[in-house]
């Protein structure tokens, strides 16, 4: 029998995934700042502490470097920690343990160990929290061999990819856009996984491939729906995993549409768009391109506090519509 499907918010889907993982495997536990009685800064852990107790839902002191390191050490020695950063920006305080330790330990010890740690990073702008609480740093971690980096865009994927991350023997970094937490969508009950390393074609089309990540998947879909009326037929790919990247899905799509645009919230230069563009340019899809590749990303600035400025520095639906129209009509 098929599992019942209900509407859950993205945050509820993650919470359900963590509860299932803890029910299934007593090695799984949660660590983070204010994830217990407070329920997490974004209420993702919610009331899990009531169900699983303070031994498995652990409030850490405000010690990101130490906390992340403790999670790495526990993972190295048989446990399955899920570590929540209160904001992805605070990964900067824990870079040492993530980049030098978690990512490299298996390699440095010649395959004798593995580090099955899951880290969750509430990311992105749009909440008025200004420059130190709004960044999109996923490409930083995407640059590090040994880590897997994912960005689920829907409640369905948030649950399935978290469960895949817990089952994965290597460190998996999950970037969750804060504005997605309240977004609802269909989520099957019970255990299922969504594979890490596999992109998803959210909308099929002939004229242009948009490769988007996280919240930009939704904005790209809105733009595609708007452009349908103008006879422009857009394919939207949700990249879902930025390391290891699903190259083939993108290449096949570009061979079909002959045009490529990348849309992501992080600062435009030296980011995911650069990687996807270069990857396509290096591939057999290059010969199929009818137009220059376009990247829409965040402006070259920290995120400003003022709400109008804050909106202006990341791609919005009208920006995607305008850029996609120009690209398809050959205006560029």
């Amino acid at each position, binding site marked *: 029998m098929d599992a019942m499907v209900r509407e859950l918010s993205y945050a509820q889907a993650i919470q359900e995934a963590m509860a299932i993982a803890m029910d299934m495997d007593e090695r799984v536990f949660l660590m983070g700042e204010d994830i217990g009685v407070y329920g997490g800064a974004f209420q993702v852990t919610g009331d899990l502490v009531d169900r699983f107790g303070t031994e498995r839902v652990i409030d850490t002191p405000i010690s990101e470097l130490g906390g992340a390191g403790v999670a790495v050490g526990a993972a190295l020695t048989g446990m399955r920690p899920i570590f929540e950063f209160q904001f992805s920006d605070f990964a900067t305080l824990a870079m040492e343990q993530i980049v030098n330790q978690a990512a490299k330990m298996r390699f440095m010890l010649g395959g004798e160990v593995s580090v099955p740690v899951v880290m969750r990073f509430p990311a992105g702008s749009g909440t008025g*929290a200004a420059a130190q609480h709004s960044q999109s740093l996923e490409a930083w971690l995407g640059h590090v061999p040994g880590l897997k980096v994912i960005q689920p865009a829907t409640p369905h994927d948030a649950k399935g990819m978290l469960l895949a991350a817990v089952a994965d023997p290597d460190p998996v970094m999950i970037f969750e856009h804060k504005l997605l937490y309240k977004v609802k969508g269909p989520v099957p009950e019970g255990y299922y996984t969504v594979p890490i390393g596999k992109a998803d074609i959210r909308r099929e089309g002939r004229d242009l491939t948009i490769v988007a990540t996280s919240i930009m998947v939704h904005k790209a879909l809105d733009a595609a729906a708007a452009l349908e009326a103008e006879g422009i037929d857009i394919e939207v790919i949700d990249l879902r995993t930025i390391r290891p990247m699903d190259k083939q899905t993108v290449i096949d799509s570009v061979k079909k549409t002959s045009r490529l645009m990348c849309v992501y919230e992080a600062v435009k230069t030296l980011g995911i768009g650069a990687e996807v563009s270069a990857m396509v340019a290096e591939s057999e899809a290059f010969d199929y391109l009818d137009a220059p590749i376009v990247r829409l990303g965040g402006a070259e600035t920290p995120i400003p506090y003022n709400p*109008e400025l804050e909106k202006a520095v990341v791609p919005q639906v009208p920006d995607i519509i305008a850029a996609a129209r120009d690209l398809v009509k050959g205006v560029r």
Partner: protein
Amino acid sequence: MAGASKAVADNRANLPFVYRQYSAEQLRNVLHKMYLIRRFEEGAEESYTRGLIHGTMHLSIGQEASAMGICMPLAEDDQITSTHRGHGHCIAKGAEVKRMFAEFFGKTTGYCKGRGGSMHIADVGKGNLGANGIVGGGIPIAVGAALSAKMMKTGKVVVSFFGDGANNEGAFHEALNMAAVWKLPVIFVCENNGYGMSTSTARSTAIKNIAERAAAYSMPGVIVNGNIFSEVAEASYKAVECARAGEGPTLIESKTYRHRGHSKSDRNRYRSKEEIEDWMSNRDPITLFENELREFGFIDDKGIEAIRDAVAREIADGIEFAKASPSPDVCDTGNYVYTEQA
């Protein structure tokens, strides 16, 4: 001023520190500023509720004596680094509330030209190097400012404000050690309000008093009742003297309490109503100071009324100023990322 109390004010020898050290006018000005902090934050809170301010904010209501007491002995060009709960520090160091409101409203007339908001409120002209969105982020920066002061022989001292939660960040320990080794003119001020967000110090910190951490870095560690202005100011005065004399840093732990939730999203499930109520009605720092001033004859009811009225006008004017100020142009998103060069 009533005759009996005037006699006390004239004979100050047995009064607590601040009443011996500062003039009546200075002390009344302290009360004025405590009210200014309180009403500023109430005004900001109300503007937030009415949708005029976006994002979030961390109110220091209940901690006014700590901010004022620490800043009391500082000179205008002495410097501070502040925290996410930094409105009180900003006002105590001399900021104008109208430019703070303007910042909260995202306007170009704000201290950070609308780019920073509550969590990055600053007043560089008055020596406030900024609030900080990163817990513990300002502590090493204060040590760096103190290193500048020493190398440039400016005679400045630097105060670093931070919360109890910050004492578990590596930055705290690394910064204190360097400040002590290099005998820098810096004062570390831990405003211990019992909780880092929802986590009590008992659950987060292995020792009872954060001031005890000072021993590990060979500096004096002082505990004060952060709700009693005179106690805080006296400890700060001594630490500032020490720092200016080249004797190195002090760690002051100012024990206090925040009346409001951590931020705008707090369900307050980690502390009891009774606890909050107790601090609000029995240990409110403004009430305590006001009572002392009255008792010692430095002010009467009319004087207090006058201060409250003046503060109310200043707050109303500040909000009007902020509303009427221009928003930044969306074409200017690239400003201030790098230093403009001719």
